[in-house]
């Protein structure tokens, strides 16, 4: 049994001997050292607070994010409109806040759902192998190859009320948001599944897994306790990248006219709408573009920092 410890046994065991304190606190201590990641975390928290407070800002300012004022088109920044007004005379700041709400929700929700699906499928395929593996991986191949566009169009045409979804939701202006989350989650789990499977494959050949099996641990327990923590870092990298990617994907779908539908704003559709006004009203394109850029960057740095923190030895290279 002494053999076991010398290999990558569950990270927790290493934590316990290395330093004192709970694993979570340790994680936090390591994470804090990563300045860019810390900065990103703070930035994202501030941003999340700001965008989810959009209705408060709206009530306080007395403006309406959807109220069109054709006389105030492209208004320059002023006290009333701190960032100016858009092509329909709506307050740009409010639109950006509401847009951020939508973009962040779509990115986070879809990425999390996708990660959960992908992890379960990847673990099962890698661990059990054999026919199940073959089946699940062919399924994965199939989903990867599945054309996103016809799916989106079909989904846009499905009458949601017939699926038992209340008419209030199905006919709301936010319906396009739910459609996108569901669709992205349904097709977005494959990279995680492939990565988890790959990691699980090389993991299950290790002695400590064999040892755990020999000791009579249940498969579920082995997967959850021994394998999952060891494959966590690729999941985290992939998922944080995914949040960013989905925010980007939403903007691309908007570009194709298949994204979040107006008047609900998202950073993606705001940017798309501004592309034709790039010469005449560049700030309309700069703000949403910048916010997408910064947010996606921040999620990436966050993932980076988390990875370093999760992997005890990652930061101990030559650097510093």
């Amino acid at each position, binding site marked *: 049994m002494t053999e076991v410890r010398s290999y990558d046994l569950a990270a927790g065991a290493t934590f316990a001997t290395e330093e004192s304190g709970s694993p979570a606190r340790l994680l936090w201590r390591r994470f804090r050292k990563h300045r860019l990641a810390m900065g990103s975390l703070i930035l994202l928290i501030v941003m999340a607070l700001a965008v989810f407070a959009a209705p408060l800002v709206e009530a306080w300012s007395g403006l309406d994010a959807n109220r069109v004022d054709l006389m105030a088109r492209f208004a320059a920044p002023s006290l009333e409109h701190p960032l100016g007004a858009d092509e329909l005379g709506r307050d740009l700041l409010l639109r950006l806040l509401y847009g951020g709400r939508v973009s962040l929700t779509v990115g986070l929700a879809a990425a999390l759902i996708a990660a959960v699906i992908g992890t379960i499928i990847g673990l099962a395929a890698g661990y059990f192998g054999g026919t199940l593996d073959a089946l699940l991986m062919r399924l994965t191949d199939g989903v990867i*190859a599945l*054309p996103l566009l*016809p799916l989106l169009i079909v989904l846009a045409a499905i009458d949601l009320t017939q699926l038992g979804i209340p008419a209030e939701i199905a006919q709301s202006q936010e319906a396009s948001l739910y459609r996108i989350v569901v669709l992205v989650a349904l097709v977005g789990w494959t990279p995680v599944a492939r990565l988890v499977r790959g990691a699980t494959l090389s993991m299950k050949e290790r002695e400590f897994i064999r040892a755990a099996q020999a000791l009579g641990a249940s498969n579920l327990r082995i997967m959850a306790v021994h394998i999952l923590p060891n494959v966590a870092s690729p999941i985290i990298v992939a998922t944080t990248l995914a949040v960013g990617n989905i925010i980007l994907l939403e903007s691309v779908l908007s*570009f194709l006219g298949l994204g979040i539908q107006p008047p609900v704003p998202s950073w993606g559709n705001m940017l798309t709408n501004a*592309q034709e006004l790039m010469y005449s009203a560049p700030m309309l394109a700069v703000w949403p573009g910048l916010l997408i*850029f910064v947010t996606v960057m921040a999620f990436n740095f966050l993932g980076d920092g988390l990875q370093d923190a999760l992997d005890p030895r990652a930061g101990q290279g030559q650097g510093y």
Partner: protein
Amino acid sequence: MLSFIIRRLLQSLAVLFIMSFLIYALMGLMPGDPIDLMIQADPDLTPEDQARLRALYGLDQPLTTRYWNWLTAALQGDFGFSRLFAQPVGEILWPRMWNTVLLLGLSLILSLMIALPAGIIAATRPQSTLDNVINLSAFAGISIPPFWLAILLIILFSVTLGWLPAGGMGMGEDTGLWEQARFLILPVLALTLSRVGGTIRFVRASMMEALRQDYIRTARAKGLSRRRVLVAHALRNALIPVVTILALDMGMLVSGALITETIFGWLGMGKTIYDAIMGNDYNLALMGLMFATALTLLANLLADLTYAWLDPRIKYG
């Protein structure tokens, strides 16, 4: 090993077959048929005309019958005519396939030329200034919306500087190689910039992972040179996830270079498939998607084989 390859090929064929039906069914599920789209462009179309055209294109028959007709013809090598371009599907797809391969191939080579050294350098000097710069640039590339990047590139290089054409594909045979190549620069650049960041990140991550393994330390302890350890041992292992990602990318790229192709007017598969789906061109969309599917499956198979070659611990039986 051989039996593994054969089994996988057979499985892939089965997937391909199922996919062909799925795609056909999906397109059948999509609202509206080609005739509905024609009515929009031509208000003079009478109800009789509509019925006649539906019968002519076989649209009045049930989906399964249509699929069966298509399948039997396709198995005999007759892929039908494209409704959107009024030409045999093959004549549309072949040149576009090559355009796509050219665009993707160049972009892939350029990506690897940037990502491998950058990723390795970053991984061997974590948290150094150089690492931070590489990381920052990688993230910056990933984080720009692709259509935005493409338009910015055009504004900079075509409108402001006037160095490169804003799009298109060259004039034909009567111009030189350089003239033709100039049209490739911006699309390749746009595609590479928005994708290379991801590759750098994966090279870096898996390289760091590999460098942490015990056998690397052992190799170093045995006195092997740093360079040899890096290349012969660490890189070999680090490439596993990189290969996975690239393989997955290949298939998606075939249909996913859509944005680049649209903005630069590059006649590739992504745009063709998109137009075919939007324009309800069954024959063209099916063959295009089947090609993308086949390529993805093949890439996955290659990825798995490379796995086996790179990591002897993974066994196939």
